[in-house]
């Protein structure tokens, strides 16, 4: 009797737990529920205010743009663009004005029609400096937006360029009848920002900051009813917890799995992996200015021969293999391969330790100290590298680069700093080398801010290493102002050749992200730059539906 007590208690406990674990709601299966597990929250729900990936995700499900770049990610011209709130468009003879005809069946969630002044309101929200919109630097070429009539709006550009339509695609109309009453600069703290009324295929149901955001399908949407009935962004600050929810089917999507978890995914048959193209590149940047006095040139790194010798000392391929196996590629330049303007034909300084040693000898770094570090005129060849501690990949890469540089007599000091301190230290320029990275978009226009010279108005604001080349800037400018795609590509190729020759950085790697999705969903073509934009087209396999996939009762 006594012996039977423990097993029976365990059995009862297991039954209770099983009962608790089951919701018991076996209602009719609908389009399904997509739970996105994420380690970061959506910082904002309005397109002009968001900066994080989560913010982009949610705001782009809640709001539709005028037009959207197609799956080929061709940002030149307008052939590769799909209509959204704008049903059609036409160009002025001088190509400086695009007139958009809005879809008359498009409505805001509160029933108001989407009208021309909504486009103007969306543009005004980006332009308002107090909103701190990250889109601002991308739409500077738009001069103004004019309402022609209720369903027609014209967008006036300052200059012609091959990417005018792409620029227009960055403007998300906002409901003017709601935002025009909000005082200038108060958009981010307004009630509308917390409970937006959108035009997208999903509407906001609830939001608990840093915990979860729930969206529901808009049944009468002008683009049709979305497949999944509900979408939730569930935030787990600990990435391992966020990923574990995928394994236990508490969540359905995790957008970029770390390499060790890609292997783990094979043990979970309910998970499908999607290998895609990345939009981030990582580099080892050189500082062209003296960290102690940024008005002076860097005492050693200003010499391109030294920068080239350092680049030759680093075996990027082996580093990428060690860190990512096949889940990344060596960097191709200050862009990613997924960008239409990217150039994969560039020739970078190849790894050649012998040539690197010879170059360093020729530059006078001949003597070796006790620890093998090269010296010249009593000065040791020591470089201080700034590394962001939150990026495990870059921390590991720094260790490997440090070891390879030691092999040629360069002493690299790794300084790991947290994410916030990294940004401040990067901007202050108090470093010799930086393990930096930039997130990009389908357009390469961001390169003006990250690598462009500051002498050019509005350029180089994030170029903290102070690389400056008039030839590079001129070629870029020519590329951006070309209307013809082939000509633009030619200019960009010239710009990339110039920057490759100048070696302002070693283009280290470009991660090829692997996303994980519950296999009960059939996925359309995956958009590498914004996969969430196709969630509405996901299809649920009814035979594999879970209790949470039951169609919610209409309220």
């Amino acid at each position, binding site marked *: 009797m006594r012996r039977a007590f423990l097993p029976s208690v365990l059995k009862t406990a*297991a039954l209770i*737990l099983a*009962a*608790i*674990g089951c*919701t*018991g*709601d076996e209602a009719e299966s609908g389009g399904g*529920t997509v*739970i996105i597990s994420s380690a970061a*929250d959506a*910082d904002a729900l309005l397109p002009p205010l968001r*900066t*994080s990936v989560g913010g982009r995700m949610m705001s782009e499900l809640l709001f539709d743009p005028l037009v959207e770049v197609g799956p080929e990610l061709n940002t030149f011209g307008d052939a590769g663009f799909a209509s959204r709130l704008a049903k059609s468009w036409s160009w002025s003879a001088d190509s400086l004005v695009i007139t958009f005809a809005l879809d008359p069946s498009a409505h805001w969630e509160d029933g108001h029609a989407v009208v021309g002044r909504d486009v103007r309101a969306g543009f005004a929200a980006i332009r308002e*400096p*107090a909103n*701190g919109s*990250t*889109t601002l630097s991308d739409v500077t070429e738009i001069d103004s937006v004019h309402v022609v009539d209720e369903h027609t709006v014209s967008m006036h550009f300052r200059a012609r360029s091959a990417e005018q339509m792409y620029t227009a695609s960055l403007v998300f109309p906002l409901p003017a009848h709601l935002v025009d009453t909000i005082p200038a600069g108060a958009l981010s703290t307004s009630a509308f*920002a*917390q409970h937006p009324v959108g035009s997208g295929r999903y509407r906001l149901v609830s939001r*608990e*900051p*840093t*915990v*979860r955001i729930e969206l529901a399908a808009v049944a009468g949407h002008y683009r049709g009813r979305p497949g999944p009935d*509900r979408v*939730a962004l*569930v935030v*787990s*600050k*600990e990435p391992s*917890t966020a990923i*574990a*929810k995928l*394994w*236990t089917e*508490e*969540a359905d999507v995790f957008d970029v799995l770390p390499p060790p978890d890609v292997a783990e995914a094979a043990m979970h048959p309910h998970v499908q992996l999607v290998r895609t193209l990345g939009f981030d590149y990582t580099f080892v940047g050189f500082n062209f200015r003296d960290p102690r006095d940024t008005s002076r040139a860097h005492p050693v790194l200003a010499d391109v021969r030294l920068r080239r010798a350092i680049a030759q000392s680093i075996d990027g391929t082996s580093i990428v293999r060690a860190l990512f196996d096949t889940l990344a590629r060596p960097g191709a330049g200050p862009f990613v391969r997924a960008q239409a303007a990217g150039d994969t034909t560039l020739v970078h300084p190849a790894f050649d330790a012998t040539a690197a040693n010879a170059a360093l000898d020729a530059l006078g770094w001949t003597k070796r100290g006790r620890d093998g570090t090269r010296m010249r005129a009593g000065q040791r060849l020591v470089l201080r590298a700034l590394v*962001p501690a939150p*990026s495990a990949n870059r921390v590991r890469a720094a260790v490997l680069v440090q070891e390879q540089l030691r092999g040629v007599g360069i002493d690299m000091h790794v300084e790991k700093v*947290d*994410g*916030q*301190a*990294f*940004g*401040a*230290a990067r901007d202050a320029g108090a470093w010799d080398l930086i393990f*930096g*990275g*930039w*997130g*990009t978009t389908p357009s390469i226009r*961001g390169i003006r*801010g*990250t690598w462009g010279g500051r002498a050019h108005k509005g350029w180089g*604001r*994030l170029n903290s290493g102070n690389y400056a080349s008039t030839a590079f800037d001129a070629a870029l400018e020519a590329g951006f102002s070309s209307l013809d795609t082939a000509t633009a590509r030619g200019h960009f190729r010239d710009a990339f050749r110039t920057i490759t020759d100048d070696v302002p950085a070693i283009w280290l790697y470009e991660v090829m992200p692997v996303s994980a999705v519950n296999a009960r969903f059939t996925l359309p073509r995956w958009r590498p730059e914004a996969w969430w934009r196709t969630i509405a087209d996901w299809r649920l396999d009814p035979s594999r539906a879970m209790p*949470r996939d039951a169609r919610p009762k209409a309220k």
Partner: protein
Amino acid sequence: MRAALLLRLGQAALVVLLVVATCFALIRLAPGDPFFSALDESTVTPEQRAEQRARFGYDRPVVEQFVRYATNVARGEFGWSHSRGEPVSLALAATIPKSLLLVGTAFLLAFSVGTAIGAWQGWNRESLLARATDGVGLVLVSIPDFVLAVLALMGPALAWRLFPVGGMRTEFGPTGPAGVPDLLHHLVLPALTLAVPIAAVAARLQRAAMLGVRDADFVRAARARGASETRIVTRHALRNALVPVLAYAGVQFSALIGGVVIIEQVFDWPGMGRLMLGAVQARDYPLVAGAVLVSSLATVVGTMVADIALLWADPRQRGRP
């Protein structure tokens, strides 16, 4: 007694003020500000950040910022949380009850079970089972709570799927009263992880205290008067042996408020600890200050409650300053 209480209240207010002022200054000394966005965001320019800093007054001297903050707090305004996009008061109101639920459950569990086990061990010191459980307790005391958390995640949550990995409720599960079992289901692992090491310490303290009173004169006198063994333990021995455990409880409540950060992070429990950690990482100054204010208040109140409990349990303490 009243004078002593007033003195303690004055001390408490001073402690809270000092803690908040220190944190206010320290977080501003740390590099970065609330307007540094994602690590590699290539569109936020230093000019835009400077404009945002000026808009919220973060370009002013720290002393001026503190005076403005203190004035606003006195008016009941805790400021705007940049990282959450909502007023700080709302963020605190949303998270405090969740942390109290977790900490309160763990606290009650730890001290009720720990005290009961310790009392039983002390009273039955010759028992083999008492010695064995004491050994197990020693092991549990030695395991840090984050290790227990990982073990709990790997076994019961991930491998056996008995409990959820994290969060407070099943997504799109039952809500309202029907959701209470689901909430309890989610509460089990984090509460147990917090409670187990504390219960082990409480048990050892209680065991030692019970050993001290087991053969005391008042116990022998109660036994001579014919009192039952249960009455002797609960009314005489345990009450006298509670003092060290109560003192420990006062300290531990404060420690739990701080220590819950890791557990909330690992188990994805949306409470104050997770809020505070996120606020520090995002340099969300108003939220950090608000969270520190609340947690220092909780620490002070917890300590005071423990002091009062000590006075109740041990009349000898009442005459002391």
